[in-house]
């Protein structure tokens, strides 16, 4: 990457542009109330006013523009009105629609004017349908607002003498893109406005698919070379990092600006192209946390591609994350997704599989706490003198109850309208219906957290109490009650001995498999939700590996105290699919073999095997090649998803002591990567406690 690009990167990383931000958010509530606007019209008004209030920022050497200056998203209802409207209803997280995938190809191939024309045509057809007309008017209002914002950028570019940029901005996003540069600029502006309207976790979808035709033509005609194309791509990626501190998330960096590479086309052809590799290279050279990269693969994927991906893993950003098409696509098809849609899947903010432009899916409505299910069964079952099978029955019942609790809460889900975001969904403008009314797929996903801890706990009970008889039920119950105070010997036995997930040991792995089978059964048994979809069980933990152990305000999920695998109250669970913290683990192959046993046909919401490799693993081309093979083994074993992180434990400990010297240190947290020093201490400590596989 040349000096100009690296200077641009460093300026954004240093936050120089943040001084251009306006001091306060705008106010739109008065206008909304004075005009007595409906909810959709308030949202449209909000998007329009945000666009109008944006100040045009073009830096001298910038070729992909838009720098957000508005610090926040203003309220469109008074707190009282909002409370009245939402009373008795469930809001997902912050409220606005998040974590779905747009079909950005609609923007690039039709332009906003093309989308506007679709809206106008439908409006003529639906003239008798006031709801439809209102939605379309709202969508058109937002389109016009973005077009106006683009005009102002074009004027400023012209005034600054940036003729090329001005020409591009006069063309896009209004009309279809004709070049790679136009496509990137169009996407940058239109995606940023989705954020500006209050929607969040706005991803970039199958970037190497919808972008490739533009790059391909430019390379063929000689408009671009590989080098100049890489520069443009780098500028686009840098621009995605400008406003990310304004984006909501549980922790800074948790912003869902993900993109997905590789895999197959809807027709089933291999989808890897030159842009796939270019994204991997540019991301590696920039070493920024956005965009977060996902790579789709199969057991047949070329090792050279995996080696390029490993070069990205090596620099320690915690991505790419790998998803196995061999497993994901059949599971989606089995659950009602059309084959061509399933083949077109992308990874949402963290790991969930969704179909761009075709899903109003809420993929993270909550988490089943396996440790709580196991713990309650152990405490109740041992007190009641159950045999082990009866105790396992209690686990199943508890999981079923947790699933019902979460799903019932979401039967009252209230989704706010999103007329602007709807522009980039298939069939919203065509049918005159906002995305919040539902799209082709309307399923809900539930995480399944702490399975390794729960299985280890159940295995400890089975092994030490029911088989060996070396620990009495009463001793274990007392130790749990006392949070292991004065039971250190017992605790260290429970933690250090007996079968543990991550060692390819069927005795404990089958208990983990059973947890997920119970979970899948509970979801399948629940049937259809009032939103017309099903429940998708998953293997991710999200932040619940901390929250389920410590509690969190407003959380529906049960908190668990000390558990039978020797974990003290408050200590974190393992993240996603990974061995419990501090237990003996044979190594990465055994870890993959353990987690390969899960029935991913039924447990298909996503959630990666998460593995920390010591950075010394990546020393030379030969070890890069071997790490690529490790990724291929993941696919060969039929696992579903993998996060490989390259970390240096000593650097992490150093960074805790001297954060000022490690501002650029990036780590993968649960389904996203962030700056280590910007994380809360409990998240830092959990990463430090993970298993590190050395060279």
């Amino acid at each position, binding site marked *: 990457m040349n000096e100009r690009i690296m200077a641009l990167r460093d300026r954004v990383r240093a936050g120089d542009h943040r001084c251009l931000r306006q001091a306060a958010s705008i106010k739109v509530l008065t206008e909304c109330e004075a005009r007595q606007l409906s909810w959709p019209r308030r949202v449209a008004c909000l998007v329009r006013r945000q666009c109008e209030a944006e100040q045009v920022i073009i830096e001298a050497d910038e070729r992909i523009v838009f720098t957000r200056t508005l610090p926040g998203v203003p309220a469109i209802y008074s707190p009282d009105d909002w409370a009245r409207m939402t009373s008795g209803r469930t809001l997902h997280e912050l409220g606005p629609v998040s974590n779905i995938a747009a079909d950005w190809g609609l923007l690039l191939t039709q332009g906003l004017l093309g989308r506007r024309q679709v809206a106008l045509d439908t409006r003529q057809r639906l003239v008798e349908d006031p709801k439809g007309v209102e939605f379309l008017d709202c969508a058109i209002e937002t389109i016009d607002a973005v077009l106006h914002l683009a005009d102002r950028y074009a004027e400023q570019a012209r005034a600054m003498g940036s003729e090329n940029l001005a020409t591009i901005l006069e063309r896009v996003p209004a009309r279809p893109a004709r070049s790679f540069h136009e496509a990137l600029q169009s996407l940058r502006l239109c995606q940023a406005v989705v954020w500006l309207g209050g929607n969040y976790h706005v991803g970039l979808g199958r970037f190497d698919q919808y972008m490739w035709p533009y790059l391909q033509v430019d390379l063929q005609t000689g408009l671009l070379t590989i080098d100049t194309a890489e520069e443009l791509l780098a500028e686009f990626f840098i621009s995605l990092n400008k406003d990310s501190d304004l984006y909501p998330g549980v922790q800074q960096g948790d912003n869902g600006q993900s993109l997905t590479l590789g895999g197959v086309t809807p027709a089933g052809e291999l989808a890897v192209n030159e842009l796939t590799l270019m994204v991997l290279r540019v991301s590696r050279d920039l070493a920024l946390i956005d965009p977060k990269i996902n790579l789709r693969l199969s057991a047949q994927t070329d090792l050279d591609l995996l080696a390029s991906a490993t070069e990205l893993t090596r620099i320690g950003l915690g991505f790419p994350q790998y998803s196995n098409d061999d497993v994901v696509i059949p599971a989606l098809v089995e659950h009602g997704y059309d084959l061509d849609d399933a083949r077109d899947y992308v990874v949402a903010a963290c790991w969930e599989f969704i179909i761009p432009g075709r899903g109003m899916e809420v993929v993270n409505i909550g988490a089943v706490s396996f440790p709580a299910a196991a713990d309650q069964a152990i405490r109740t079952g041992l007190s009641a003198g159950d045999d082990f099978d009866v105790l396992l029955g209690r686990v199943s019942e508890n999981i079923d109850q947790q699933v019902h609790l979460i799903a019932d809460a979401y039967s009252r889900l209230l989704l706010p309208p999103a007329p602007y975001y709807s522009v980039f969904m298939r069939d919203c403008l065509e049918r005159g219906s906002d995305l919040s009314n539902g799209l082709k797929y309307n399923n809900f996903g539930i995480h399944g957290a702490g399975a390794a801890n729960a299985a280890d706990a159940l295995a400890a009970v089975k092994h030490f109490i029911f088989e060996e008889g070396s620990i009495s039920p009463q001793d274990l119950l007392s130790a749990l009650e006392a949070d292991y105070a004065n039971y250190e010997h017992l605790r260290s036995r429970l933690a250090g001995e007996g079968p543990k997930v991550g060692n390819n040991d069927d005795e404990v792995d089958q208990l983990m498999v059973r947890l997920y089978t119970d979970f899948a059964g509970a979801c399948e048994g629940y049937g259809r939700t009032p939103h017309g979809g099903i429940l998708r069980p998953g293997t991710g933990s999200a932040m619940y590996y901390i929250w389920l152990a410590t509690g969190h305000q407003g959380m529906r999920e049960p908190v668990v105290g000390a558990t039978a695998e020797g974990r003290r109250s408050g200590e974190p669970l393992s993240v996603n699919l990974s061995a419990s913290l501090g237990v003996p683990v044979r190594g990465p*192959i055994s870890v993959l073999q353990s987690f390969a046993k899960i029935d991913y046909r039924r447990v298909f919401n996503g959630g990666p095997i998460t593995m920390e490799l010591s950075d010394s693993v990546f020393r030379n081309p030969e*070890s890069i090649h071997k790490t690529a*093979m490790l990724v291929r*083994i993941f696919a060969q074993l039929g696992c579903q998803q993998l996060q490989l992180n390259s970390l240096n434990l000593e650097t992490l400990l150093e960074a805790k002591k001297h954060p000022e010297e490690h501002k650029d240190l990036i780590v993968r947290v649960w389904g996203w990567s962030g700056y280590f020093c910007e994380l809360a201490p409990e998240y830092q400590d959990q990463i430090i406690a993970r298993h590190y596989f050395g060279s």
Partner: protein
Amino acid sequence: MTSGMVFDIKEFAIHDGPGIRTTVFLKGCPMSCMWCHNPEGQSLEPLVIRSPAGERIAGKVYTAAELASLLNQQVDILRANEGGITFSGGEPLLQADFVAEVIDLLDDVHILFDTCGFGGEKSFRQLVNRSDLIYFDLKLIDNKAHRHFTGCANDLILKNLQVLSEMGKPFVVRVPLVPGVTDTDHNLAAIAQVVCDLPGLMYVDLLPYNKAAGSKYRYAGMEFNPEYDEAQTLNINTGIFKRAGIRVNVV
């Protein structure tokens, strides 16, 4: 059924041979090299390791059948990824009967035998016969220096190297570069002279000194007293080998 003692089984051992490998570290070594980076593998008895990561015992007894069945769980994966099983240590020759029995019980898979070469010829042949590739360590050619720094004479080692060459199995000679001890031009030239005419030699690996070893001694309750300067710049003189017509890598 023979039993043996193992102090570690390491998966995804990327520096222990071709492809994806699992390495079995056999406990016990006849030598006690001053720079040994697996000091916990030297004694034939289990050893308590106390490190910041907690306490563990290095040294676990397996029957040959137990160890083979554990390894057989992965053999298909290793074979499909150009790899196999590596037997290292410590020194596998000290438990040759055990190792041989384990190998005989393994499904078809590439076997790498990583040895210091110090052992009886019968044991040595027993393991070489069962292996596809041998990593043979050579440290010092001067016998007096060898005794001083490793605690053993090198006659047996040099003899086994000849035996190995006559057996026709492919092998790699590995030279740990210890500053001022093994990395001198004099020693490297002597090694080059010993190995240059051996027909089965594939190449020489030079292994630069690893400073991290010191803390492992502390964790194992042992003392680390190097008589050389750890900070001294290494003499990584590959030219000596190249001039002798020997392929050489720095690992």
